[in-house]
Structures are given as structure tokens and as C-alpha cells.
């Protein structure tokens, strides 16, 4: 019998662990995750860190390295204060979407917890990062760490060269606009020369083929009246307006920025873009990881590789994580993504293997297909929270969670229950919940709509406010001031009711001289 214990032998005993334990646990988990669950992962790198290092990681959004800025120091100070006073525990792990996939595990964790976090982060999250379409589309797992390294040294060099204050001003302004510094849709690909030539040739051939001299004689062509309109159209097209990525717009178009300032905007924009998929897949990502760790731990226990006591320890922390307080519970603070995510994954697996008549009616595609893992892997790869809920939330689960839909209209005296978990409400409930996860609905829709570079260069932005939900005026004023400073000229933000096109509110800001 080998020293590390064959199948059927306990992986570890007691709460203590060493690096050999981690290695043993990892191998056992890998066998199940890859061999049985069929996960597809980036190579793993597991890093053991201390509490202080975990706080460091918190401060920099979990990234192992990031440029320097006071706001990270502020975040560190806050977390440290909370942690020291015992108001806040620390996460058991942090995982980074990179290749190799880095998982930080805390040294304080017991052996069971290490097994749990390895299954959760190094396999669950890792699989999700590698396969989900949003991450594939928007993030470059191989390139992110080198890029952050570049960003850090670039910002440091700028600080040396142009002074801390100057760099800080740019970063402050860029951070204020960070939430509006992402591309939400894949951009049009720039055509390359060859395909451009081919298209041009085809067009000419087409024109020659259909040429008819009679068209020349048709009256009413080439009137002067439409020229300015065309001009405007053309101008906006050249600036790629309307543009919702404000940082991108500034980086490319702001007339008075220095090249290094543009580069810093670009860095902030890239970091924002890197985190963009995470905000949209919180529910699925945690659901996927929780489901994976649950499966793995269960199977390890079934095979006698984890003792009953340790399995109970695992169940204890697992149920803590996936606990969903009800809305009238003082502990309620929104829907717990771990809880809903895990419940949905379990539910999908149930529907695939053991469906009821209702499930067959609602999910004819996969109910009873028997291949729970296939369905789940497909869901993990091709959905985000919003579409995942819209597609997979089942009546059975809605009933179990006793979901209901509440409308809060300030013009009414009462709140109204619009739908509950019954036959009439399921679809509306599901649509409403899915909308809550729609990032397009969460983030205010603000776009740069026009600017006259030849005229007064005033930048005009529109905020389309659904349901008359206006921006927080004070913050909007501050952000707009940053925006005006970057732009170098006046900026106007109009809040518009998308239904009536009525202007609800206007904000103005002028560039302060000498800021950039």
C-alpha cells in the first residue's frame, strides 16, 4: 500500500494539513472532477496565504497585482477595520480568472475546508471561467497577469515622471467612469484591406451590371437640403457615436489629453472590461462552483475518503453558504447567489434525471434526458445570469423558494403583489427575476450621443432612465465634473424618459482649468 493511501483510504485525519495533504486531496478531487464530472479546466496553481494577504487581495479586487491608487488603500483600511473588530470574516478562498488559474486558500482553513475550497475554486470556478461564453469573449486568461504587471509598472513610471498628483487625478477621473468604461457588445470588426478590396470590386461589378442611364434623369436627386443632415450623420459615424463606453470615447477622442493619460484611461478600461463578465455571472458562477464542490465532497465521502465527522463539518459550512433567509428575516439582504445558484443546478440535475409531468411540460428539451452533466455543462457555457434564470428557473423551485413579485410605485400608497408562485405567476415571476439579473437593467444606460468638434466642442450625453429612475444627483455631478476635466470642455448630461423622449433633468459641468 502506498503512503498516500489508495482508494478507500482516508485522505486526511483531524483538522491539520500539510502540503502533502493538499496534494493528496487535489489528486482525489481532480479524479472526480475531470474523470466523472467531465470538467474542463485551466491548469491550477494553488497558493496558501495568510489573513493579512487575504486582506491585501480584497483591497485590489482579488488581483495579485494592480497599479497603486489610494482607493485600494481605503478599501484595505475598511476591510481591516471590520476584520479586526470581528464584524466580518474573511473568504475561505479567492480565485482568479487567469491561466494558470490561481486559487488563494487561507492558512487558517481546516483540512476539510481546504478540500472544499479546492473543489469549489480550483475546479468549479475554474471550469466556469474557461468555458462560459462571456469570459471567453471578454477576458484573456493567459494575458491578464502580464497585462496587470505592465499596467502597474506603467502607472508607477508615470508617477515618477509626472508626479503623484497628476497621475492620481487621471486615475480618480477614470475610476469614476469605470462602470461606463466597458464594451457591452462585441464591436464591429475592422475590415482588413483585402476584404475591403473584394467588397469594393463586387460593388463595382454590381453597379456595372445594373447600370441604367435612365436613373440620371430622375428628378429630385442631389438636393442641397439634406446635406447638413448627412454631414451630421457622417460626423457621428466617424466618432462611432452614440458610444456607451465613455472611457473608450475619451481615450480616442478627448482633444486635450496627453498620450500617457490616454494610456491610463485605457488601463482602467481594460481592468473594468476584465471584471465585466463577473458581474453578469455571479449567480451561475457560484452556483456552478457550489454544485461541483457538493458533488465532489459527496462522492469522496461515499468512497470512504472523508470520514463522517469531516463530512458533517463540510455539510455545516455548505449549508451556511447556501442559506437563503426569507424576505422578512432580519438577516435578509437580497437573494443569495450561492443559494439560488446551487438550488437551480440541483433542480436542473433533478429535471434531467427524474422529471415530473410539470417539468416535462416546461422543459421539453431536456426533461428526463438522463444526462444531467451534459445539460449543466451546456448551461454553464452558454448562458449568463439573466438568460439562465429566464431559461432554467423551474416552477418547482419557485414554489420551493416561495418567490413573489412586488411592485413599488412611488405614486401609489401601497406596494402591490404582482405575481406569486402559482400557475398564473410563474412566467411573470421568472421574467421579473431575470430582469433583476440583467446588467443592462442594473447599470444606468448612459451614452455619449453628440459632440461638435468643429464648434464649441460641448459633449452631450444621454441617460435613458426607465421608470423615471434618475441618477443620484450629487454623485452624478461629481462624476460629470471628472468627465468634463478629462474632456477639456463643457459636458451636458440629459436624463431622458425612454417612453416619451421627454427630458427629465439636465446636468452640466465645465472643465476646471489646469486639471490635465
Amino acid at each position, binding site marked *: 500500500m502506498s503512503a498516500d493511501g489508495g482508494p478507500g483510504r482516508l485522505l486526511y485525519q483531524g483538522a491539520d494539513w500539510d502540503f502533502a495533504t493538499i496534494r493528496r486531496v487535489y489528486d482525489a478531487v481532480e479524479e472526480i472532477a475531470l474523470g466523472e464530472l467531465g470538467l474542463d479546466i485551466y491548469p491550477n496553481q494553488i497558493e496558501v496565504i495568510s489573513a493579512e494577504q487575504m486582506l491585501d487581495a480584497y483591497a485590489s479586487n482579488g488581483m495579485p497585482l494592480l497599479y497603486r491608487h489610494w482607493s485600494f488603500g*481605503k478599501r484595505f483600511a475598511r476591510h481591516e477595520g471590520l476584520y479586526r473588530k470581528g464584524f466580518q470574516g474573511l473568504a475561505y478562498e479567492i480565485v482568479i480568472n487567469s491561466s494558470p488559474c490561481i486559487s488563494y486558500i487561507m492558512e487558517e482553513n481546516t483540512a476539510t475546508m481546504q478540500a472544499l475550497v479546492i473543489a469549489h475554486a480550483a475546479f468549479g470556478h475554474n471550469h466556469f471561467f474557461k468555458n462560459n461564453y462571456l469570459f471567453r469573449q471578454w477576458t484573456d486568461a493567459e494575458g491578464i497577469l502580464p497585462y496587470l504587471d505592465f499596467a502597474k509598472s506603467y502607472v508607477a513610471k508615470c508617477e515618477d515622471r509626472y508626479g503623484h498628483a497628476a497621475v492620481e487625478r487621471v486615475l480618480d477621473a477614470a475610476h469614476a467612469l469605470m462602470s461606463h468604461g466597458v464594451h457591452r457588445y462585441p464591436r464591429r470588426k475592422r475590415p482588413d484591406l483585402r476584404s475591403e478590396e473584394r467588397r469594393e470590386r463586387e460593388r463595382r461589378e454590381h453597379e456595372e451590371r445594373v447600370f441604367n442611364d435612365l436613373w440620371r434623369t430622375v428628378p429630385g436627386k442631389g438636393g442641397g437640403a439634406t446635406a447638413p443632415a448627412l454631414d451630421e450623420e457622417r460626423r457621428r459615424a466617424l466618432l462611432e457615436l452614440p458610444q456607451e463606453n465613455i472611457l473608450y470615447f475619451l481615450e480616442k477622442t478627448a482633444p486635450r489629453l496627453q498620450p500617457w493619460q490616454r494610456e491610463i484611461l485605457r488601463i482602467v478600461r481594460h481592468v473594468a472590461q476584465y471584471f465585466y463578465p463577473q458581474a453578469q455571472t455571479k449567480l451561475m458562477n457560484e452556483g456552478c462552483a457550489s454544485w461541483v464542490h457538493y458533488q465532489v465532497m459527496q462522492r469522496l465521502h461515499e468512497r470512504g475518503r472523508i470520514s463522517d465527522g469531516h463530512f458533517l463539518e463540510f455539510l455545516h459550512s455548505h449549508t451556511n453558504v447556501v442559506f437563503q433567509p426569507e424576505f422578512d428575516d432580519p438577516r435578509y439582504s437580497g437573494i443569495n447567489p450561492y443559494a439560488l445558484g446551487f438550488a437551480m443546478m440541483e433542480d436542473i440535475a433533478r429535471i434531467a434525471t427524474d422529471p415530473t409531468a410539470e417539468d416535462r411540460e416546461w422543459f421539453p428539451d431536456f426533461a428526463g434526458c438522463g444526462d444531467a452533466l451534459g445539460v449543466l455543462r451546456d448551461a454553464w457555457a452558454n448562458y449568463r445570469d439573466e438568460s439562465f434564470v429566464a431559461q432554467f428557473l423551474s416552477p418547482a423551485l419557485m414554489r420551493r423558494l416561495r418567490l413573489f413579485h412586488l411592485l413599488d410605485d412611488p405614486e401609489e400608497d401601497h406596494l402591490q403583489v404582482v*405575481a406569486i408562485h402559482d400557475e398564473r405567476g410563474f412566467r411573470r415571476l421568472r421574467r*421579473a427575476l431575470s430582469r433583476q439579473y440583467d446588467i443592462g437593467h442594473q447599470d444606468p444606460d448612459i451614452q455619449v450621443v453628440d459632440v461638435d468638434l468643429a464648434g464649441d466642442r460641448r459633449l452631450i450625453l444621454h441617460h435613458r432612465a426607465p421608470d423615471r429612475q434618475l441618477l443620484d444627483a450629487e454623485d452624478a455631478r461629481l462624476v460629470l465634473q471628472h468627465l468634463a476635466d478629462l474632456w477639456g470642455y463643457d459636458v451636458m448630461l440629459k436624463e431622458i424618459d425612454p417612453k416619451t423622449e421627454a427630458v427629465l433633468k439636465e446636468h452640466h459641468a465645465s472643465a476646471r482649468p489646469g486639471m490635465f
Partner: protein
Amino acid sequence: MYIIDRRLNPGGKSLANRQRFLRRAKALVREAVRESAGSRSVRDTEQGATITIPGSGVREPTFHRAPGGRREHVLPGNKEYIEGQTIPRPPSGGAGGGREGSPDGDGEDAFRFALTQEEFLDLFLEDLELPDLAKRRFVDGEVKSWRRAGYSISGSPANLALVRTLRNSLSRRIALRRPKPEEILRLQAERDEAEAAGDPERLETARRLLDVALRRSQRIPYIDPIDVRYRQFQPEPRPIAQAVMFCLMDVSGSMTEHMKDLAKRFYLLLYIFLTRRYRHVDIVFIRHTHEAKEVDEETFFRSPETGGTVVSTALEEMLKIVAARYRPSDWNIYAAQASDGDNTTSDNERTARLLADQILPICQYYAYLEVGREDGLHPVGFIPRESDLWRTYSLLRREGHPLAMRKVRHRREIYPVFRDLFRKDAAKEAQATP
């Protein structure tokens, strides 16, 4: 798969960010630090502090929606609601009211965080100096300490510098080509071999070589007296690294709580300041009415006392304590006196004499703080004039004694007054002629 142990990586990765944060919030932090100093006990300042700064100063604004407008919520845990039912609006923040609010809702809140002691004091005592006077005495301190001063060729065996000695020995042996033990062993082996081989010529050579080597190694000792070195020490005057601070306060009936509070703040500042400069600071509280007593801090500030006012009693008490516990040659002595300026008229002469003849000569610095009523009003029929003590001390100062005096009415004046006293030129004022 790799497992990496990062626990031993150098910590303080966030230090640079923290410094940037403190720099950013400097004005606010400074304000908060000075504010918090008032509420703390004198000795507490040896620790760091948790301070609170208004969140608006380090705000990170973003575009986000204000609360309000038409909102929809999907909530778990329905108990009795049915579709179409209306529910009275709960008080804000209550159940069902939705907690979406602003995503960065804590932006407005005050921001609390902990400063290390170092950071706290740096901000607190920014650009203050001990008076030049004190620095001069620093250097003249009579305590001697021993400092390493290279090597010497003589000394006591306890101070033998082994490494240096052996290094000298090694270089001498190399220079004089003392054969190594291996060399001798090799030659012996060679001789034995020649003997065994029975080659007389070779044996002869081998013997000769061995003989030379043996003689050489005997003549050139392994360690010679000229190799030996001793560590040498030199006496050096060491600045006196300890200070005692005397807090004298009038606690007679005329001193109000407000005045005591002012005094306390001043003592606090002085204490912190001294702890930054000296390794060890003792603090002695002496309170007096018509008689003086040494008390602990709590009694000093809290417990009321009634009686007349005789300042010289406190000075005598101080002298007694100095004589008993703090030899002026070993201790830097600082004294701060707080009073409302009253003194029994007949005592003024005695006070002045005590100060000039005995106290001021042994003190590094003597600060007199005259605390006044906050409103600055005087009792009816009272003609505002300089107080007894103020006049007495002014006289002394004119004679050139190291005495600083200030008047304070409001607690916001304490800090400026303190800074004023410890600016560089303040020392010159305190001691016009050395």
C-alpha cells in the same frame, strides 16, 4: 498543479496604497486625529487610534441611480400574499422595502479606520521641534556609553577578536609559506614509500624535504603574538534618553471643569511630544490648593478640591520629588503648569524665588499655561488685568529665564498654542540669553 506557499512573502503589499490614501485624506485625518486626542487619556496615546473621517472626503463617485422611481422586487419566502394584494408601505428599510438603494450606499457614511501609532503621531506632531535649548542639553548629557572603536594589539582576553586574529594568522602563514599539515603527511608518506622501495637516493631526498618542512612548521608558529587583536571600545557621551514631565495644576475652587479640560489637553500634547523624543518618559502629577500633593492621573483631573491657592507649595513638592527620584543629571526635566492665574498675594515673591533659583536651572523647559473662562467674561465689578502669576512670571522672563507662557481660553486654541510653544523660534523666546 502547483502549490505555492505565499505566507512568507513580505507583507505590507498594501502599504503604498495606504500611504496614498492617508495622503489623500490628510487634511481630514489630521483634523480627526486632533479631535480624537481630546477624548483620550494622557497615556493612551501610546497606542494607535481608530479615527473616523467623513466619508465625503474620500468619496468615489459613480453614475448610479438614486433611490426612488418605480421599482420591482422579487423576494423569497412568501407566507400569505396572493396576487393583486396590496401591502401598506413598510417604514423605509423594512421588510419588502427592497435594499437595492445605491450600490455604494456607504459612500455617505463616516469612514472609520485604524491608524498605527506611528501614523497617528506623525500627523499629530507634524513639523514640531523640541526647543534648541533641550537639544543642547541632549548632547551635554553626562551618561557615558561604550562604543566599538576598531581593534587594538592589547587588551583583556575577554575582548579577544578571534576572527580578526585568525585572519592575521592565516595571512602570515601563507606569506611565510608554513607547510600545511597535509603537506607534511604527504612527505611522510613519500618517505615511507621510499623506505619500502629501498631506493636510497629517493629516501634521502624525501627525508631532507620532510626535515625542512618540519623545521619550518616549528619555526613558524600557528598563532603568533603579532597576530593577536583585541576589540577596542571607546567611551562616548550618550544623550539622556529619559525624561520626566511634571504636570502642576491649581485645583482650587476657582478652576472650573472647563479650565481643567484645557489643561489636560495641553498635558496630553506635551506628553505625546516627549514620548516621541525620549525613550522613557515618566509623568508626575502634582495638584495644589494651599497645599500640594502628588496624585495619580485620575485624581489629578477628576476629583474636586477646595482651598486657597499657594503656588509655591507645588513647586516645593516638585523639588522634593526631583531630589528623591529624578536626579537632574540623569533626567531631562520638563514642567508644565496650568493655572487660572490666582495666587495668594503674599506667595508671589516666594514663587518667583523658587522658580528662578531652583526650578528653572534644572528644567529643560518650563511652560506656564494660563487657562481662562471660555466666554472670556469676568465677574461683575472685576477689572480685567493681568493675573498675579502672569505678572510674576513675566518679570522672571524678562530676566531671561527659560520660561514660556501662554494664555488659553478655548480648546481650539490649545493646539495652536502648543505648536507655538514648540516652533523653533519659541525656544529663543523662552531663553533669550543662554
